[in-house]
């Protein structure tokens, strides 16, 4: 890959794939942009006149938009907090030598391979159902009023389900990072008089900073677009209590058949996601080049 000829050959060889991917990305993006400026409702057959910024105006001023933004942030923030802190904790526990390490590690990673719809349904019907779910049964048998998870604490319930899926991911990444920590550094710190907490705070945590950054960045990207868990459990309700931005776009375009409005929401979501991305990169990206 060093001669001029081989470099230009590489460019030629790679170009079909690049062009295909570019088209794949650009065509839907441009179509979404185009639709977002049209009055385009599937229930009104006929022409689709140009609507200017009208779709954007109505989407943003819709009271559920504000709720959706708030819900999106709460969902992402909640899951991130639980998975990073919990993942750190789990990784430290799993790093210790113990009986059956291999099997335990496979079991820990297992939830990540369960698809979102399935895991949400399992949680909804087998754990969180107030009558038949395990939590309900336990509460009833102890004489407590069972909690109606999706009625009383819908957002917390969804955060719980999503965290269950993503905890293994955080654990795995942090565990690998932890295992790459030089044991002599920990021993040196021990000799230097650092107790467990100080070793964690001054040696382990800085070592893990990069891995934590990766966990947060990757999870944020995926968590902004959580959809399946909401669809199969609460349908965005009660009211708009669990409607996030993705779900709101789904509601406008596929439940209200308003393609124009849905597209406007999509464009807003793209912009917001990019703002979050820039913000995150600025805030923690410096950990990546150190």
């Amino acid at each position, binding site marked *: 890959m060093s001669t001029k000829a081989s470099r230009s050959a590489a460019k030629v060889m790679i170009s079909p794939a690049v062009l295909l991917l570019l088209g794949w990305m650009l065509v839907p993006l441009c179509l979404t942009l185009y639709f977002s400026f049209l009055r385009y409702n599937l229930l009104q057959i006929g022409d689709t006149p140009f609507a200017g910024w009208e779709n954007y105006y109505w989407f943003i001023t819709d009271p559920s938009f504000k709720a959706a933004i708030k819900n999106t942030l709460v969902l992402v923030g909640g899951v991130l907090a639980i998975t990073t802190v919990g993942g750190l904790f789990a990784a430290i526990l799993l790093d210790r030598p113990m009986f059956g390490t291999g099997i335990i590690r496979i079991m820990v990673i297992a939830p990540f391979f369960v698809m979102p719809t399935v895991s949400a349904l399992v949680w909804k019907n087998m754990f969180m159902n107030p009558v038949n779910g395990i939590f309900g049964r336990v509460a009833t048998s102890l004489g407590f009023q069972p909690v109606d998870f999706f009625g009383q604490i819908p957002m917390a319930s969804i955060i719980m389900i999503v965290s269950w899926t993503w905890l293994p991911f955080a654990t795995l990444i942090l565990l690998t990072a932890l295992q790459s920590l030089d044991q*002599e550094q920990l*021993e*040196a710190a021990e000799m*230097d008089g650092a107790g467990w907490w100080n070793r964690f705070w001054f040696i382990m945590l*800085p070592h893990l900073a990069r891995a934590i950054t990766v966990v947060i960045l990757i999870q944020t990207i995926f968590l902004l677009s959580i959809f399946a868990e909401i669809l199969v459990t609460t349908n965005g309700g009660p009211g708009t209590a669990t409607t996030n931005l993705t779900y709101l776009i789904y509601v406008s375009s596929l439940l209200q058949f308003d393609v124009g409005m849905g597209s406007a929401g999509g464009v807003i979501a793209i912009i917001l996601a990019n703002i979050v991305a820039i913000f995150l990169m600025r805030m923690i990206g410096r950990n990546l080049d150190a």
Partner: protein
Amino acid sequence: MGRIQLKRVQKKFGDVEVIPPLDLEIEDGEFVVFVGPSGCGKSTLLRLIAGLEDTTSGTIEIDGSDATATPPAKRGLAMVFQSYALYPHMSVRRNIAFPMRMAKMSREEQDRRIEAAARSLNLTEYLDRRPGQLSGGQRQRVAIGRAIVREPAAFLFDEPLSNLDAALRVGMRMEISELHRKLDTTMIYVTHDQVEAMTMADKIVVLHAGVIEQVGSPLELYRHPRNLFVAGFIGSPKMNFIEGDEAAGHGAHAIGIRPEHVDVSTTEGPWRGTVGVAEHLGSDTFIHIHGIPGCDPFTVRAPGDVAVSHGDAVFLTPSAPHIHRFDAKGLRIA
């Protein structure tokens, strides 16, 4: 104060006995070197003293009080690791300050000690750099600095020079020796390199398979090795061992003769052989000689200007007072 006593200290990993019960006394201010081939348990012994490993049985006393169950931080010992074990995300200053910070020492005292250590180790201009931006020798000095500022009862060095190149190693060897003269603190130094042991130690402890083979000053070990192992391990090039009739003639099972205690001649001498490889180092010539009964090749250290080459016939004359005699068990015959 750094008087360390090991009494019947034993270490097992599972069923494997790495260190059979051993006794050892280290006096205050001594520079003690643990030397032995890799896997002889010298690092384990150091880690037992440091408290990074638990003893299976026996007691470790530091300054007369039992420290066997004392956690490493409370033993008042500082350790320099083979990999230096610097904290990569902290500047040199914060690395050196770390043990004092853990001890909650006042800011002024910390700064004073950092300045002093940096000055004596030539690190002043590097204090704000990260370990990753330093060379091997500088990292080594930072690790030593981190140990010095604690003003420990004893320093423990675990093969500290093995990651440095040869020239730097000689320099650091001198610096550590000078540091010892200056601080007058007990130092325990682990190495597999007998040259380091010979040049730095007040007292050498030769270890083999967890057992102490001999304890003594460098020259004592060189002149009066207690057994075949020590005789072969101390000294470079290795001592030549001759078994069979020649040894029986001296009333021993085996005799040992160092390469520097043999005269080479092209005309006369009791032993006759042919030159295999001659290594000309300039100051010395190491000649490997074949054909000496009971020892092949026989190494001789000759002056640098000796003119022999491959295939030449040579005659050897051992220096009688320098012949070491060993019995069938490998022990020295006085």
